[in-house]
């Protein structure tokens, strides 16, 4: 198994990319808070924004996670804009009230929004000022999740990137592995078991459960990207001396194996050791995927841009489930970090970057794919037109990485078709 991955005969590296600039039908970066606040359990995410931001968070959460969540919005009001109230004082007051109610918080992220960016509210200064008042017990960080700068998952990238300067400097230059991008705990544990088995370590995760116990970074830190959207974070870590291990993303058995092997190779671990560790999980993954492959093979799929996970997802769908890619949209294509994925995709795949949603819908309707992966705003209307859809946010909110989840991931795509087979309305 030491041979490199079987590449597509010619990858998609040189495939033309359809670049579109029209109406984008995507979430803004604030929505990343929905999973980040569950991951970092000692942190609070305070959006400085409008009623729209608060309403978005509530609506995107779908079912409201109604126990008091660790996020909220400081809603800017008319009197703030008219200069009748000093916005910085107002923000300090809101933070004071928040910390009085929740003294257990260790970190408060001040999260910029479209309105706060447009009025150029200086959250950097605010965060320094608030550190002066509430530090060192509470640390303040800030980033922008605004829709004028970030798309959906880029919010996580911005958040993690804001933490990079606070990461302690690593002692010495002995190698360690830093896995970047939020993973479910169950996935982390599975990855840790395999790394442990092949003698690769120490392994740390960013983000971890604590916003204060951050992993060290420096010479010898080697990075694996767990999520395809942590581009800027990785660049900042690199500028602090870390080294990126290029790899495909751990979706499906193939992606997961390549991801683990890339790290193992960098550590100089021999192939036989890795073979032994991945054999069992890989076989299980293939068993779990098999019945879904049967249902999905040869079926066509159209992916609307949503999370930046579309390329690796498309690679998984085409190479492991045998689906035919009609169009693969992505909100943003970072070629450097997508290199390994592009090499695995076939040359005749239609890539689209950015969006003009009406035109993209026209193309989708013309192609009538067997499955359309899209956001929740589009799914029911397309279903009503007789297309089967998979709403994409579920791919971000479900543990899908790793060998043991490969079957679950396949099942997510098969479920709409399975449902179609079961329902008998004439």
């Amino acid at each position: 198994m030491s041979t490199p991955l079987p590449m597509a005969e010619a990858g998609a590296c040189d495939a033309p990319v359809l670049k579109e600039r029209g109406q984008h039908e995507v979430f803004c970066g604030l929505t990343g808070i929905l999973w980040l606040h569950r991951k970092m359990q000692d942190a609070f995410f305070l959006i400085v924004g409008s009623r729209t931001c608060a309403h978005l968070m509530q609506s995107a959460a779908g079912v409201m996670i109604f126990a008091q969540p660790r996020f909220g919005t400081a809603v800017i009001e008319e009197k703030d804009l008219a200069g009748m109230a000093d916005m910085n004082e107002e923000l300090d007051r809101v933070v004071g009230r928040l910390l009085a109610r929740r003294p257990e918080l260790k970190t408060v992220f001040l999260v910029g929004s479209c309105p706060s960016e447009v009025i150029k509210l200086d959250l950097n200064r605010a965060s320094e000022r608030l550190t002066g008042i509430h530090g060192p017990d509470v640390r303040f960080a800030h980033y922008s999740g605004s829709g004028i700068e970030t798309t959906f998952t880029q919010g996580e990238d911005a958040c993690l990137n804001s933490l990079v300067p606070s990461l302690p400097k690593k002692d010495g230059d002995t190698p360690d592995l830093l896995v970047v991008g939020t993973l479910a705990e169950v996935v982390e544990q599975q990855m840790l078991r395999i790394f442990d088995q092949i003698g690769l370590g120490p392994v740390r995760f960013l983000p971890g459960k604590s916003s204060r116990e951050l992993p060290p970074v420096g010479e010898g830190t080697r990075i694996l990207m767990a999520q395809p959207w942590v581009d800027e974070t990785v660049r900042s870590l690199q500028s602090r001396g870390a080294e990126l291990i290029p790899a495909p993303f751990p979706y499906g058995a193939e992606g997961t194996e390549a991801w683990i092997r890339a790290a193992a190779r960098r550590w100089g671990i021999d192939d036989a050791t890795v073979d032994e560790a991945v054999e069992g999980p890989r076989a299980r993954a293939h068993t779990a995927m098999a019945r879904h492959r049967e249902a999905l093979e040869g079926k066509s799929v159209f992916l609307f841009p949503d999370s930046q996970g579309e390329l690796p997802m498309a690679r998984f769908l085409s190479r492991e489930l045998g689906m035919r890619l009609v169009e693969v949209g992505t909100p943003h294509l970072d070629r450097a970090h997508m290199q390994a994925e592009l090499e695995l995709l076939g040359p005749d795949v239609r890539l689209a970057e950015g969006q003009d949603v009406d035109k993209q819908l026209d193309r989708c309707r013309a192609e009538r794919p067997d499955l359309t992966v899209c956001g929740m705003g589009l799914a029911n209307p397309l279903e009503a037109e007789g297309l089967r859809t998979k709403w994409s946010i579920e791919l971000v909110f479900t543990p899908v990485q790793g060998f043991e989840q490969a079957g679950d991931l396949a099942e997510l795509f098969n479920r709409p078709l399975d449902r179609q087979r079961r329902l008998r309305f004439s």
Partner: protein
Amino acid sequence: MKLTVWTYEGPPHVGAMRVVTGMKGVHYVLHAPQGDTYADLLFTMIERRDHRPPVTYTTFQARDLGGDTANIVTTAITDAYERFKPDTLIVGASCTAELIQDNPGGLAERLDLPVPVVSLELPAYQRKENWGAAETFYQMVRTLTLHRAPERGETFERQRDGASRPTVNLLGPTALGFRHRDDVTEVTRLLDRMGVDVSVVAPWESSPHDLVRIPDADANVVMYPETADTVARWLERTFDQPYTKVVPIGIGATRDFVNEVAELLDIDPEPGLSAIQSNMPWWSKSIDSTYLTAKRVFVFGDASHAVAAARVAAEEMGFEVVGLGTYQREFARDIRKAAKVHGVEPLISDDHLEVEEAIEAAAPELVLGTQMERHIAKRLGVFCAVISAPVHVQDFPARYSPQMGPEGANVLFDTWVHPLVMGLEEHLLGLFQDDFEFTDGVGPSHLHTGTVSHAGTAQEGQATGEDTLRTPDVPEPVVARASGDIEWLDAAEKELKRIPFFVRGKARRNTEKYALEQGVDAISVDVLYEAKAHYGNR
């Protein structure tokens, strides 16, 4: 600035979307950044709409800000018009675009499109969703009917088109409304029995052409004052068109509504009154309902649903209204008036934490509220039925389930009584406290969920690691839990636990109140029972 976790209303442009999405032949170009497109899913997911809302967002980005965002607006309007060919175009801005002041209305005007263009100014930092809906509806009707307005001193000639029966318009139902679809059907049926025809229903499924016909009806039925009050007042002033003030929710209000319509149209109310055939009055009089007597209810919602629900609760269910409130400051006056009738303090707040405190303090046995109160009630271990927006996917049942008219009254009876513990079951719970299979933590036996009560929420609290939840069953400290210096002695605290959880809050509150009045600073078992004797089951 105001710290907000959950909101009762969205921003005003979402209200505008509720109007245009309910209509046909209208398109809304909204100057807004990409994230604002989340609003589409409110309609496609919560209401399960099979079409995208007729909204084009300009989705400008940070890099556009230094340059020409106005040009983006113009392009978006031009493209949207070409693609969708609407009969009327609406243009406006969301909160962010309001700050950059591109004046989409002016830009649209310059394009000289061959259809009416309505320019919306919805101040996002002052106003909210319902106001936005009302303003949008008003601006559209005004734009489309103003050319028909009579000169000063002249009377408006209604176009009757050979109609022999009197006609009314039904105003207010929108997309994403609480049971609007079914209320329209129910009210239309009732009016038909009165010999009244419905001319235009708007905004719901109306077109701009329909809006032009609004002044021709003899009167307007304001189904939802939240969205239709502004336009109805304007129509009265401009076209001398009277409108209804009663919202026909509950038997009594439905009768009042019939009488009001009859008076406005100068017709006999009798056919309408005899058409109010509902099981609800008999169901409520039936002896199995005696256990509902004087149940303490807390009512909260949009103003018209809350006022109506409080009346039904008091007059038709025999409940005791212990709290009444709304999140709509615009309608505070209506709530204050109703609160006076029920002898409670009105609660006007859009801060759900404040609402939670008020509910906890009132110790109700049933909460009639919104989805937000459903969660609050769940946390407090109290039963809840939803009576008002903000809505949830569950508020769009597949079956016919109006709130208004005779059938609406049936629906209210079923949905409010269903979550409660049944009469006999209530007694049995009280009789056999320690039955391991029949503990009060499992909730009413006729509800399969089994975790309606505090047991479920306590688990939830652990699982999520969220704030400590205040649930009745969490072991409480022995000392000084109450306000002031009242202390619960150990034995009394234990005795309190033997009282079924759905009345425990009330018992605790009454006992503490009694102790305070009597100047007792330590509550013993005797004090507990003295309080019980003093208050009875109240």
